[in-house]
Structures are given as structure tokens and as C-alpha cells.
């Protein structure tokens, strides 16, 4: 817990507010401050005067001052001898109309040319891009077509080979069938021939038998 409360602090501050310097001390301080200020002003003024004097002593400074005076005189003479002061508003209006009449068509023409050039350049750029794109597309299509063609040729060859093999197999099969049929025909002919021979033999035997019977 603090031993000093706010009342005590206020009391101390009040005691401080009651501290008063002596009248003599205050007067002395004010006088001294005044003297200091005056001295400083004098010192400042004397320094400025010395600087001015030093500047004016120099030859270059004199020439510069003369030049400044001459320029000033020339300016004043020029202003006085001028026919009449320029009307700034009138001058501005005249300049404005003159500039407008001379610059407007040229500006318009230039603007149109610029727009045309920009459009042409944009079109040319677009055309070039389109051409390149078409070429690329055509190249891609050709490559694809060549690949397809090569693939189809291979496939066709394969199909032809398979067809030839099939035809060959069919021909071989037919030949076998024909051969079997011929063999069977030959066999049948042999059988028929044998039967005919036997029949003839039988017929001859019967004929002979019949003749002998008739003879008998």
C-alpha cells in the first residue's frame, strides 16, 4: 500500500506553485535576457553588414550588380516602350482558334492513318498466324494420313496373305475330293466290269446250256 496519497501529492504541488523568486532576481534575469537578445541582434546585424560589405567589395560582385541594374533598366525600358500590354485572354483565344484550325485536320488525318496502320498490322499479324496454323494443321493431317495409309497397307497385305492361304487350302481340299471321287468311279468301273464279265460268262454258259438243251 502506498504511503503517499493523492492529497499529499496535491499539497506538494501546491507548495511548488507557491515558490516565488525574489523580485530583484526576476528583474535581473529579465534584464540579462534582454541584453543577451539585443547583443545577439546586434551581432547578427553586424555579421550581415560585414557579409554585405565583403560582397560589395569584390570586383565580380560589382560587375554582377552592374549587370543586374542594366538588366533591370532594359526590362523597364522594354515594358515602357511596348505598344500596349498584351491582352492575355484575346491572345489565348486567337492562339486557341489558330491552333484548332491548323492542327485539327492534321490530327484527324494522323489519327485515321494510325488507326488504319494499326488495323492493317493487326490483320497482317492475324493472317500470318492463320497461315501458320493452317500449315501446321495440314502437316498434322498429312502425317496422320500417312500413318493411316501405312497401317492399312500392312493390314491389306495381311488380309491378302490370309485370303491366298484360304484359297490354297480350298483348292487342296477340292483336289482331294476329286481324287477320292475318281478313285471311287474307278473302283465302281472295276466292279461293273467284273460283274459284266461274270454275267457274260453266265450268259455264255446258259446259252451253251440252252443250245444243248435244244439240241437235245
Amino acid at each position, binding site marked *: 500500500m502506498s504511503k*503517499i*496519497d493523492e492529497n499529499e501529492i496535491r499539497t506538494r504541488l501546491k*507548495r*511548488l*506553485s507557491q*515558490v516565488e523568486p525574489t523580485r530583484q532576481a526576476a528583474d535581473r534575469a529579465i534584464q540579462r535576457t534582454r541584453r*543577451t*537578445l539585443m547583443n545577439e541582434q546586434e551581432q547578427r546585424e553586424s555579421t550581415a553588414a560585414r557579409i554585405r560589405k565583403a560582397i560589395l567589395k569584390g570586383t565580380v560582385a560589382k560587375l554582377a550588380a552592374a549587370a543586374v541594374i542594366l538588366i533591370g533598366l532594359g526590362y523597364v525600358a522594354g515594358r515602357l516602350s511596348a505598344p500596349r500590354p498584351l491582352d492575355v485572354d484575346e491572345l489565348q483565344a486567337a492562339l486557341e482558334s489558330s491552333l484548332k484550325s491548323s492542327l485539327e485536320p492534321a490530327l484527324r488525318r494522323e489519327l485515321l492513318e494510325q488507326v488504319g496502320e494499326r488495323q492493317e498490322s493487326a490483320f497482317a499479324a492475324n493472317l500470318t498466324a492463320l497461315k501458320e496454323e493452317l500449315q501446321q494443321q495440314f502437316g498434322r493431317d498429312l502425317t496422320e494420313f500417312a500413318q493411316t495409309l501405312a497401317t492399312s497397307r500392312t493390314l491389306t497385305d495381311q488380309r491378302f496373305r490370309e485370303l491366298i492361304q484360304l484359297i490354297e487350302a480350298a483348292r487342296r481340299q477340292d483336289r482331294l475330293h476329286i481324287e477320292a471321287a475318281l478313285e471311287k468311279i474307278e473302283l465302281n468301273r472295276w466292279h461293273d466290269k467284273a460283274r459284266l464279265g461274270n454275267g457274260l460268262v453266265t450268259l455264255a454258259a446258259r446259252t451253251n446250256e440252252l443250245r444243248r438243251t435244244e439240241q437235245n
Partner: protein
Amino acid sequence: MRSRDKELLELLDKSGANLYALLTRLTLREDVAEELMQELFIKLSHSRGRARVANWDAYARRAAINLAFDWRRSRKRVALRLEQVREPASNDDSPLGKLIHSEELQETLDAVGRLNRSSREALVMRYIQQESYDNIAEQLGKTPHQVRALCSRAVIHLRDVLGSNHRKPSEKEMHNV
């Protein structure tokens, strides 16, 4: 003579005594107050922003407060010359009573020096210079309500600082006792 110098001399005539009294209250030394008074006016004379100052009296007073506390910070505790300080409120005229009171005042001023600038200025103007809240508010560019709050917080801060000083005697002090 430039208008600036004229203004300064007029300010010196008008407020010189008050500024000197303020410096004396904050330094508790007339000789130091005299030196600081000169320093204050030289600073004002060389100040570049003088054209923008609206109230010269208030500006000089704030500059004096800051100058005095700068001096206090630059020096450690300075022995008070009792013969230069009159304390009409004091009933105890004995040398011991004066010594105790002057020690308390130094301690209080050191604590005020530890406040931030705006609180310090408000506190000094209110409690040491006995100015009204409205007047202080005008000088500090704040509202009276803000100044009142600043002063209140400053007193609380002082109470804490001074209370902690009383609570915690240093080892050196203990040793001396």
C-alpha cells in the same frame, strides 16, 4: 530590428516574470532559472517554426517546462539553496522542516520529470501554474475533458512512483541507516 526580435522583446516584457517564476519552481534554483531563461529566449530566437506559432505565450511556457525538465534530467539531484525559496504555506520555519520540505519537492519534481511530455505539461500548468482547464486545453490543443483526464492520470502515476520510492528503500539507504 526584425519583427521577430520585436516580438521576442514584447514577449519578454509581458511574460518574462511568469516564465522566470515557472523556471524557478521547476528547478528550485534562481541562478539556474536565470540561465535557462536566456537559453529559452535564444532558442525561441533561433526557432525556425516561429511563423507557424499562433500563441507565443503558450509556446514559450511549454518550451520552458521542457527546458527545465531537460536540465533536471541532465543533472542528478542538486542541493536546494534554501535561502532562494520562499514557502509561505509552510508553518514549519525550522531548518530541519525546510530541508524536509525541499527534499520532498525535489522528489516530486523528479517524479514529474518521469511523466510523458503531454501529461507533464498538463500537470505543471494545472497544479504548479494553477491555470484553468480551459486555458490549458487551449494551449495544448485538447479539450478540457482530455486535460482533466491527463492530469488525473498524471497524479495517479505520481502516487505510484512516489509510493514505490517510499516502499522500497535502497540497500544503500538501509546501510547508511
